[in-house]
């Protein structure tokens, strides 16, 4: 996998822009992760967050962005292993890793244009976390359309 992310201390991981030549993010291939993490939103590609983020997220599923997304321990552990093994690279504050892709610096940068605001209003998009509302093939790892 040539998915090497840019390391900028805590700003980390600029997936596509950092991957010269790559135009997609490796999609989730594990059916368990696809199912369990794709029930309320699309199953986000693990490369978007570093391992420390996934570990923290999987340890706090009882309060997942204001919701209970808890799993039984066996399922939880299997999913965490997959996410960690396919995580993005980047140095982060291990004590306080980011949990939102939408709050990473590269994401903010890519989504600061008026174009995003217009699309959001026009398509009545609830949250920027609903990637597929604007990127039709987000599930498959393509974000270069709009």
């Amino acid at each position, binding site marked *: 996998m040539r998915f090497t992310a840019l390391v900028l201390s805590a700003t980390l991981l600029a997936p596509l822009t950092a991957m010269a030549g790559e135009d997609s993010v490796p999609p989730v291939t594990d059916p368990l992760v696809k199912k369990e993490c794709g*029930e*309320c*939103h*699309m199953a986000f590609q693990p490369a978007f967050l570093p391992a420390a983020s996934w570990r923290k997220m999987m340890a706090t599923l*009882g*309060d997942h*962005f*204001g*919701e*209970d*997304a*808890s*799993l039984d321990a066996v399922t939880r552990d299997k999913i965490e292993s997959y996410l960690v093994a396919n995580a993005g690279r980047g140095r982060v504050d291990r004590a306080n890793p980011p949990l939102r892709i939408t709050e990473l610096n590269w994401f903010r940068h890519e989504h600061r244009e008026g174009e995003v605001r217009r699309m959001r209003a026009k398509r009545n*998009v*609830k*949250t920027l*976390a*609903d990637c597929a*509302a604007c990127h039709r093939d987000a599930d498959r790892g393509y974000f270069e359309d709009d």
Partner: protein
Amino acid sequence: MRTLLILPAAIVLLATASAEAAPRRALLDDFATQAKAADPGFTGFSASRGETLFRTRFTGGKPETPACTACHTASPLKTGETRAGKPIEPMAASVTPDRYTDPKKVAKWFRRNCKSVLGRECTALEKGDFLTFMISQ
């Protein structure tokens, strides 16, 4: 000739109806056993109590999810939406036939959603009432 055609059709209908009815019956029986154990005065589930649970705004749970209707909409016949914008198939068994047929799925979502909305697990009585309401819709 007519009856010959209708008969197989009726059998197919019955068969599909019972394919879903059996796991639902097993779920309800299970909840009934638990409800009886918790309260010997238990006499059966009520669709109207289930509807009240579905519509009540609670204060004990997470502020983002005050009621079942926050995601499932006020109508069991309508498509809902998660807080992250993903559609949720209607809850009424008549509209989404495979609802309430997988005990693991039912248990997982009652656990999560009751904790999010009420701040605690639902009782067997509440679960049975809720299913009874949704199956009647």
